[in-house]
């Protein structure tokens, strides 16, 4: 066959230049070596892509569904559809509960729509920066209220044990569309050990909500003695020795007490009055509420230089950020609520409303966080591939750059 390539044993692909970060090969072991050696041997020739048969096939599929719009535009969805045609395409969206992750084009859709999610991420990032700025730049004040909240935050941060719930509620809109993030995390801590479970993680864009918790493989995560344990896919625990380069960063991120360090930067607070909080078990606790409010229109914020060194400094917003702090009779900081209602300056279409509430309870209680029994603890390199560290950093840098590009759009 003139147009065919002899193919006794085709070699695996090389994807060539790509934006896929190059990750080292997985660790070698006896099973994988045996599997490599057992690769089926094809003695049939491989057809060439420029052969007549392949050419005819190529022309037939391209003529059957010609390009709707030149320049790589996607084929328009049928009337009445949103473009998410997973129900219409059984090949791309294999509707099989056992294989719900294997939907490459769903991921591609997300990446293509990154501008939309970028809006959400940008808003969230802006919120984080603005909150930090607000906490740090409130007018100087030495009222006793400030001492009360800072003392309470320090006490809670230094508590030996406790439980914590975090809820995030974010709505954002601009002239591109609308977005929403709702998330909840339940955690507990005992000394340096931390455990948490993601209770919800929903994201929507233009009203179409996606339950991300359904895609997140983790149901519970524990950090015990420097080892990360995760119950993955509900199929049992795995343990990974936290690599040095992520150890501190990951445990800080996972530790719910870290949020309390921001209170140290507060420079103003006023007492609102008594407030009753309800704990998850229905019990109530009497507290004193304190509040800090920052007006983003305050020129001291924009001129402070706090935002100037950040990539996000060109994000402008008007509105107020409110920080509510609740201190109980024993001097614990029981709840920290940061909320805001922001709009784009000069009547622009962008707006964002957010509320992040962190509640501490059962402080000093009998909290047990143990390593799961009988779990094989792996080195990070064993799990993720030797040399993962460098690739992780490269991937992180790439992601960060992408996000900042989104912000510039």
């Amino acid at each position, binding site marked *: 066959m003139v147009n065919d390539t002899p193919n006794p044993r085709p070699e695996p692909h090389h*994807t060539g230049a*790509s934006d896929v970060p190059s990750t080292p090969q*997985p660790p070698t072991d006896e099973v994988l070596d045996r599997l490599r050696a057992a690769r*089926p041997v094809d003695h049939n020739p491989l057809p060439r892509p420029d052969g007549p048969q392949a050419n005819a096939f190529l022309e037939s599929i391209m003529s059957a569904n010609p390009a709707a719009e030149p320049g790589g535009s996607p084929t328009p969805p049928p009337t009445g559809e949103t473009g998410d045609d997973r129900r219409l395409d059984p090949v791309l969206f294999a509707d099989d509960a056992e294989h719900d992750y294997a939907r490459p084009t769903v991921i591609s859709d997300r990446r293509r729509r990154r501008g939309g999610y970028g809006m959400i991420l940008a808003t969230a990032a802006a919120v984080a920066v603005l909150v930090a700025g607000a906490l740090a730049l409130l007018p100087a004040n030495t009222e006793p209220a400030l001492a009360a909240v800072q003392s309470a935050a320090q006490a809670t941060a230094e508590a030996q044990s406790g439980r914590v719930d975090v809820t995030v509620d974010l709505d954002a809109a601009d002239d591109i569309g609308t977005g929403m993030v709702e998330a909840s995390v339940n955690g507990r801590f005992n000394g340096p050990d931390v455990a948490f479970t993601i209770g919800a993680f929903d994201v929507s864009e233009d009203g179409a909500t996606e339950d991300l918790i359904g895609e997140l493989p983790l149901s519970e995560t524990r950090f015990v003695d420097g080892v990360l344990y995760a119950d993955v896919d509900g199929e049992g625990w795995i343990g990974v020795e936290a690599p040095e380069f992520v150890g501190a960063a990951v445990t800080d991120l996972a530790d719910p007490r870290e949020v309390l360090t921001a209170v140290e930067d507060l420079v103003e607070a006023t007492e609102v009055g008594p407030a009753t909080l309800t704990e998850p078990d229905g019990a109530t606790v009497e507290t004193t509420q304190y509040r800090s409010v920052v007006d983003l229109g305050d020129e001291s914020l924009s001129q402070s230089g706090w935002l100037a060194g950040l990539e996000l400094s060109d994000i402008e917003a008007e509105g107020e950020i409110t920080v509510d702090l609740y201190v109980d009779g024993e001097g614990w900081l029981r709840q920290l609520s940061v909320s805001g209602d922001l709009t784009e300056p000069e009547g622009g279409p962008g707006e964002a409303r957010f509320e992040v509430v962190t509640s501490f309870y059962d402080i000093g209680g009998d909290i047990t966080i143990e390593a799961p029994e009988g779990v094989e603890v792996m080195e990070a390199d064993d799990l993720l591939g030797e040399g993962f560290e460098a690739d992780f950093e490269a991937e992180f840098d790439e992601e960060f750059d992408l996000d900042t590009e989104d912000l510039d759009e």
Partner: protein
Amino acid sequence: MPTPTVSPAPEAVVEQAPLDDETRFRRLFETGYQPLVAYARRRTLNPAAADDVVAETFATAWRRRADLRPGAAPLPWLYGIAANVLRNQRRSQGRALRLVDRLHHDPLTAAVAEVDLELPDPELHDALDRLSFDDREILRLVTWEEMSHAEIAETLGCSVNAVGIRLHRARKRLRHELDITSIVNPDHR
């Protein structure tokens, strides 16, 4: 035995420069056709069946061509579509296909099942067949396609970390199946 290669030339990657749909897809076809045929044959063990998988994969890729980001490596994307094609075929053909699968590994009925590829280490293939499709696929992508974790993540539409976890589990399960095989037949080692 001659050893041809199906590795695409370095330039055979979907380019970043703006190209019209047709040109991009033609380049994708040139790049991915032979690797995809080889991929499909290794899974169907039959060139005719592999041709069906390749045809449906490219037809789907053409419909969804806008999803392939400029600069992205095309093979992980194509393999991801092909995996869904294979999965759908298995589901639609149900028992009949599973029977044929078993026959593939039975030397007495191999001719009937039209197995045209040579299968080294049949015991291992038996053990592999007892795994779920997803376990098999991630193991095959690592060893037969020699893909990196990042490429597999692109293919399966999951995170790199998830690839590591799933691969770890799949290896354990395959090792378990091989252990069973060795117990049943101690000569198989």
